[in-house]
């Protein structure tokens, strides 16, 4: 029983990474209908840039600046490449383009920073277990939970109350009308993409403290994040968070009894959800159904 609780908590922590990534994915998907296969790449960019900046800005400084830079990279990618795909109705093209982008980013990371993992370190005072029996709750993991919660709440407030947020929300319902009302939807989509990539970069910085920093780390986090979006419901941000946490906990619990199935269970859950309730747990009836 104890082991189960431990694993559930661990799953929760892992789910936090999925939730962060899923938030970014869901943002991009719902407004621009772009399936961002390069999300893992922006995670890697965030992590590596933070690592490079840590000697200059310190851990906390890099934590802030790294994701911002990842967001800026996302903005640039959107302006140069993805913008041209909006007129095409088939989501295939954005999928393929971002797929190619993911390959390029992974290769660039390997070329610039080397193929071996880099020793990304967390400040000493955070890297201790908080208690002897519950030794797996380290200060750093609590910080991860805290930052994610803060950022998620911040996003919620942004979407709910700020002008940008209102426009994004309106855009996910009906982008044409928003444009007709005089809003610059190109800017809107660009900013949205940048915010989405900010989340990916943040996930990368946080993950590098736990998982280490390698060019291929984005891949393993990308697919579960898609699953989180689908399970939570395409078009719903809280659904993305919920989906991420859910599959994280499910994977954690499965590890207790049947470790080999811990990854497969994520996809199994997705299949079940898609078979029974395709719109996802919190999703709205969407055009894709």
């Amino acid at each position, binding site marked *: 029983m104890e082991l189960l609780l431990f694993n559930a908590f661990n799953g929760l922590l892992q789910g936090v990474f999925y939730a962060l990534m899923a938030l970014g994915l869901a943002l991009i*998907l719902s407004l621009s209908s772009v*399936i961002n*296969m390069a999300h893992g790449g922006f995670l890697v960019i965030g992590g590596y840039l933070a690592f490079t900046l840590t000697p200059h800005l310190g851990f906390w400084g890099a934590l802030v600046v790294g994701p911002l830079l990842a967001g800026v990279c996302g903005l640039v990618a959107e302006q140069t*490449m993805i913008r*041209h*795909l909006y007129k*095409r109705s*088939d*989501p*295939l*093209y954005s*999928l*393929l*383009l971002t*797929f*190619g*982008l*993911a*390959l*390029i980013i*992974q*290769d*660039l990371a390997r*070329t610039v920073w080397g193929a071996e993992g880099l020793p990304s370190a967390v400040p000493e005072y955070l890297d201790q277990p908080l208690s002897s029996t519950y030794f797996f709750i380290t200060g750093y993991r609590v910080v991860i939970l805290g930052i994610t919660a803060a950022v998620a709440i911040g996003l919620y407030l942004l979407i709910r109350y700020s002008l940008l947020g209102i426009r994004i929300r309106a855009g996910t319902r009906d982008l044409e009308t928003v444009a007709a009302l005089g809003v610059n939807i190109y800017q809107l989509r660009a900013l949205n993409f940048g915010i989405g990539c900010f989340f990916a970069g943040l996930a990368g910085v946080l993950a590098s403290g736990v998982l280490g920093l390698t060019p291929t780390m984005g891949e393993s986090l990308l*697919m579960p994040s*898609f*699953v989180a979006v*689908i399970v939570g419901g*395409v078009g719903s941000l809280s659904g993305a968070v919920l989906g991420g946490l859910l599959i994280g906990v499910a994977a954690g619990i499965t590890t207790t009894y049947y470790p*080999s*199935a811990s*990854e*497969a269970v994520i*996809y*199994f859950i*997705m*299949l079940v959800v*898609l*078979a029974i309730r*395709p719109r996802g747990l919190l999703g709205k009836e969407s*055009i*894709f*159904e």
Partner: protein
Amino acid sequence: MNLQTAWAQRRYGFLVLLWVALLTVPYWLGYVGSYSALGSKILVYGLATMGLNLLFGFTGGLSFGQAAYFGIGAYGAGMTLKYIAPSTPLAILVGALAAGLAATILGPLLMRRRGIYFAMITIAIGQLFYFVAVRWNNVTGGEDGLAGFERQPIHFGHHLLVLDQINFYYLVLFCFTIGVVIMHTVLRSPLGHAWVGIRENRRRMEFLGVRTDLYVWASFAIAGLITGLAGTLNALLFNFTSPQDLHWILSGDFVMMVVLGGMRNFWGPLVGTVIFVVAQDYLSSITNNWMSFIGMIFVAIVLLFPKGLLGMVGRNSGAP
């Protein structure tokens, strides 16, 4: 005389040229400095992508998990040779049927979905099979892949055909031809035309009383069968298979090859496969950054040539 005949003439000539070239590959491949395993691989992947194209280009189903059936075919063939009987034809048959069966059983899950949901279900199925292959160590060899089997010589009555590089190429060509004939026949039939109709406007087809979900199911199953057949040949080509033959990155490569060559065209995927496989082979030998170049090819094709190479051939060419 109208445009149709001249067009048909051109196409007929192209087909003749193609088959002559394919039949004589072992003779001229050495002169261009390539190797016969690459030629076989191109045909194998070409068959896989043409199978994918049935679902993707002709029915409009965005399948991003086709590698699952490729891998099922590969593992089916490998496990047959390893555990059941040392017979190559049996291995091919078992592998292809296993893939077709898997596709048929899983079809109902996605026959009513479209767009991103369809794509995500195909990815999920692919990942499930991937993890089964990786974790079921005792049977599939797990992460290290399935080894310890070899393609066996085929008995033709008294004559024994040893499957060395060249003979195996002709076996691949033979299976490729069978696959092409099947696909050609299906595409020309009412089934194939229904698929094109579903691709163009699914709602209208439903209004016309067509059970579109059943047609999508059929498309999915047949595509799975053809891709599975290609998978068996791949396992026999390298006498090896591994979970990477099931991975979603391979699925993405397949989709890329189809788009590269032109997804509305019957021969488009083969063209795309030739270019992609040769590019990958060539680039990985000359530079460590070949992955960036492949990625750039993806980006360039999507942005500049979305209809693919054969798609730029004048008007829309449907079934041959």
